[in-house]
């Protein structure tokens, strides 16, 4: 079956407290569809981290999730500042999060590395001053 289910979420960059709502909804839907706990965990962590990044670093964006029988694909697109040095941003521990965000427990610089770790396919496209798009895929093994 090739038909997919598509979910589109507007991630609001001005409302920090609602960050994580989109990934929670995806998790609920995947459970109702009967996907394995392993896949659900990977998808929820990867998407949660990406969603938080859009809120903290890019003032929000659009999350698009497509679910098919064998794969969940997540695209997170924002119109934020872009990432200057992707390799640096991908390294564990690198973070530009401001103190007020760190006070909430974020800013360990583990988001991007974890997203990559939990996904089967991972790609970032970014342009300074234009925005960042993260493409992730998790296969249903």
């Amino acid at each position, binding site marked *: 079956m090739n*038909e997919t*289910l598509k979910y589109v979420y507007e991630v609001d960059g001005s409302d920090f407290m609602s960050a994580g709502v989109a990934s*929670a909804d995806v998790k609920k*839907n995947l459970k109702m*569809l*009967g996907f394995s706990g392993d896949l659900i965990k990977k998808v929820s*962590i990867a998407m949660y981290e990406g969603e938080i990044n859009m809120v903290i670093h890019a003032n929000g964006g659009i999350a698009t999730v497509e679910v098919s*029988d064998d794969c969940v694909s997540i695209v997170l697109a924002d119109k934020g500042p872009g990432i200057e040095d992707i390799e640096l941003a991908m390294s564990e521990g690198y973070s530009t999060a401001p103190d007020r965000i760190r006070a909430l427990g974020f800013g360990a610089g583990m988001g991007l590395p974890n997203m990559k770790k939990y996904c089967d396919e991972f790609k970032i496209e970014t342009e300074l001053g234009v925005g960042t798009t993260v493409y992730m895929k998790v296969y249903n093994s």
Partner: protein
Amino acid sequence: MDRVFHSVTLDKDKCKGCINCMKHCPTEAIRVREGKAKIITERCIDCGACIRICHNRAKKAICDDFEMINNFEYKVVLAPPSLYGQFLVDDINYILTALKNIGFDSVFEVSTAAEKVSHLTRESLNQLRACTDGPIISSACTAILRLIKVRFPDLCNSVLPITEPIHIAAQMAKDEAVRETRLPPEKIGIFFISPCPAKVTSCKSPVGGTKSLIDGVFSVNDVYVRLLAALKKVDVPEQLMRSGIVGINWAQSGGECAGLLTDNYIYADGMENVIKVLEEIEDGKLPDTEFVELSACPGGCVGGVLNVANPFVARSRISALRRYLPLMLNRGISDATNMFWEQNLQFETIFRLDENREEAMRKMRRLKAIESMLPGLDCGACGAPTCRALAEDIVCGNATIEECVFKTVTDKKNAEVMDDK
């Protein structure tokens, strides 16, 4: 499904069809149909939230008739520590003596078994943690066990595989009674006074492959008046207490954790809080926490919905009662093998749209389409707790879109506008 019995039920005559219980049910197990609440049995976890909220007292827990104790030659009652907070006394022995005086031959404190569980948990925690990611979750609250079974498939293997203290207590009490009376086991009745519908259900059909030895279960509410009267007549209490602070602490949220002698734990009470913690564990956000204690009721078992006393008053009474008691009196886990479950929690797939993925995807697509037609007010007038829940009911064939009042009204208005043109 290992459930044959289910304690929470509806008193149809008292139900006025308001939507309070439906709105407060943590598993969306209630619908209002034809002016009456209806419980979807497979979804109900017997937490008692609906009993707590219903102003018409239309939700109740099915218990046994007290007179049934007379079917047994020797009667033993199991007293949970939360019971001690129900009365104002200065010594737990008063309550235990009064329990004997209302018709039992002996009393057995559930807290003695709880102390054994605390001991065994301490001994086995590291080994259990090595087998799963994240913390080990307490198995003490039956409502939480049911919640995990239906909503958190991935956490079933993280639950402490040790039998609930009441069942261990039942075994200990039975063995002791057989030894002392030399009666055949079937002539000895074991009874429990329950703070909640979840434990009533546990007495009738426990989880984890445990066999229940409990012959009858009554709510605190059912025995309260008798017990209060008996209590007034106790002059000099018998010395019946056999447990210490560690066991009695299990009456309240955080008590089980305190008995583990580690700092690296979390405890949470109240369904909404509990669900948030479970979500965090499921997402792997608590990798270093060793143990998590969760109680469905606010404040823990003192907050059980079949209790009589205000939970906060009960908690403070218990604090006073346990002062000057020894730390713990029951160790001995030589019989530990009987304390472990035969099998881990088994996940029940009742929230899946369909067992067949293709069919589930088809239903999900329809669900999305229907949800987008609904107003998103979550008003409950359709008899489902949220617009999304109505959409679910529709795709599963349990409701129709006409049930949505707003949709029907706006459709009608639109039709009129069309007519005018």
